[in-house]
């Protein structure tokens, strides 16, 4: 329990340091773009394929249930609400925690173990600002964009499943998918992933940047980054969903 509280306290202090440093120039635009490429662009194939496959599988399962109630016409809407509200944001977050979180944890831990972070410091450069801040910002920018791609591919997978069993046209599928979907059902859940991204960047950076266990610490930082980031975004999701329901009551069905 004490170790857990200590970890939470250290993460909190690390986050505070990040908030303070983010407002101080230089603003690291080049490093942020590099990290957006690493966290976002390079995650795109994984997100696209996962979104498509999950959309397909979800539609196959959902359709069976909807048919029993004679509501198969609602399938596109169920698909879009499921992806926009929860599956897209959460799955994109978990995929990023797995791919990017592990990468950040391992990369920074390796830099610590091989004295690269010390080398940055002795060159009179603030290593925290150069390495940690861009990763947190890049994750919080990249994840909402990846979530939109995940949503689109989920709908595409759903359409393929629908198409296999009916003659539904693309236009009608899209029309039904967006028929009763308000902006409030799409924008807040997508934007909440910016918080997921920041949490992934923060936790992974903390675990990598502060490790002092040499080569052994690299593997541990990578594993812990995935486990703790994933757990954190699931827990934070509960709070954010309740917050969204509170702020946009029409989204709470």
């Amino acid at each position, binding site marked *: 329990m004490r170790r857990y509280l200590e970890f939470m306290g250290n993460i909190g202090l690390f986050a505070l340091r990040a908030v303070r440093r983010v407002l101080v120039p*230089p603003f690291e635009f080049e490093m942020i773009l590099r990290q957006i490429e690493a966290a976002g662009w390079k995650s795109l194939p994984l997100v696209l394929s996962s979104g498509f496959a999950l959309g397909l599988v979800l539609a196959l399962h959902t359709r069976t249930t909807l048919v029993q109630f004679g509501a198969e016409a609602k399938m596109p809407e169920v698909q879009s609400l499921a992806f926009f509200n929860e599956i897209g944001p959460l799955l994109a977050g978990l995929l990023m925690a797995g791919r990017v979180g592990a990468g950040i944890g391992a990369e920074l831990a390796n830099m610590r173990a091989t004295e690269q972070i010390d*080398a*940055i410091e002795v*060159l*009179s*450069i603030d290593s925290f600002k*150069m390495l940690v801040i861009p990763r947190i910002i890049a994750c919080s920018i990249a994840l909402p964009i990846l979530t939109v791609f995940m949503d689109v591919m989920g709908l595409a997978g759903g359409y393929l499943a629908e198409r296999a069993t009916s003659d539904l046209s693309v236009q009608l599928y899209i029309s039904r998918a967006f028929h009763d979907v308000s902006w409030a059902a799409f924008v807040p859940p997508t934007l909440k992933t910016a918080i997921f991204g920041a949490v992934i960047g923060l936790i992974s950076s903390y675990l990598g940047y502060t490790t002092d266990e040499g080569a052994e610490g690299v593997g541990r930082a990578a594993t812990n980054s995935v486990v703790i980031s994933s757990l954190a975004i699931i827990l934070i999701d509960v709070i954010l969903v309740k917050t969204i329901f509170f702020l946009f009551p029409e989204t709470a069905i």
Partner: protein
Amino acid sequence: MNGGNPPAIAFREVSRSFGGRAVLNNVSFEVEPGEAFCLLGRSGMGKSVTLKLAIGLIQPDAGAIYVEDDNIVGMDEDGLSKMRGRVGFLFQSGALFDSFSLHDNLAVPLKRLWGQKPDEEIESIVQNNLDDVGLGKEGRKMPAELSGGMRKRAGLARALMLSPSILLVDEPVSGLDRVTAGEIDDLLLRVRKRDNTTMVIVTHDTREAHRIGDRVGVLDNGNLIAVGSMDELAENQSALVRALVSEAE
């Protein structure tokens, strides 16, 4: 010797422990401006810790550390950053940034520190420094493509980017064959002769200490047990010191 100038580096009764184990115990020494001071000793005796203390990467448990006029113990980040602008550091592994090309390893820090300088000027400095260490045609290579000796030379080129008055060097020839080690030593000697750079060189290679160092300090179990020229150390009372010195012959 120094004509009234303050020492380039001075340790005053510095102690440092890790996990209850004393790595440095009341260590005191001075390095005069322009001097090459070698710290000699077996592995794990606190040599690298001494260098990291000298550049503020680690803070001591007790004592004072002066770099030129400034006591860096307890100094804030801004003060340390200014001090580090005058001090270069060559890491044992080279510590090149994996994700940058060799050229960018030298250019990126300079661009960040001298953002207002024209790119052409920075490019010229980078190319000159790479040429100086014999890596002028290797700028596009990534660190993973470089041999151990090339990494050390690249690390040296980067350490010299800000034209430091003091150079701290951690085990410059460890893991290198005798010929490559000689080339690295030649480079260090050339830099010292050209720029009159103060050097603190940590090594376990007695021949290197003999070749480069004006004075040599011997660290053993966290204690500085002898300081002097190699000739003086050859007549030291400690059998360990005499044994280390005799390796150079």
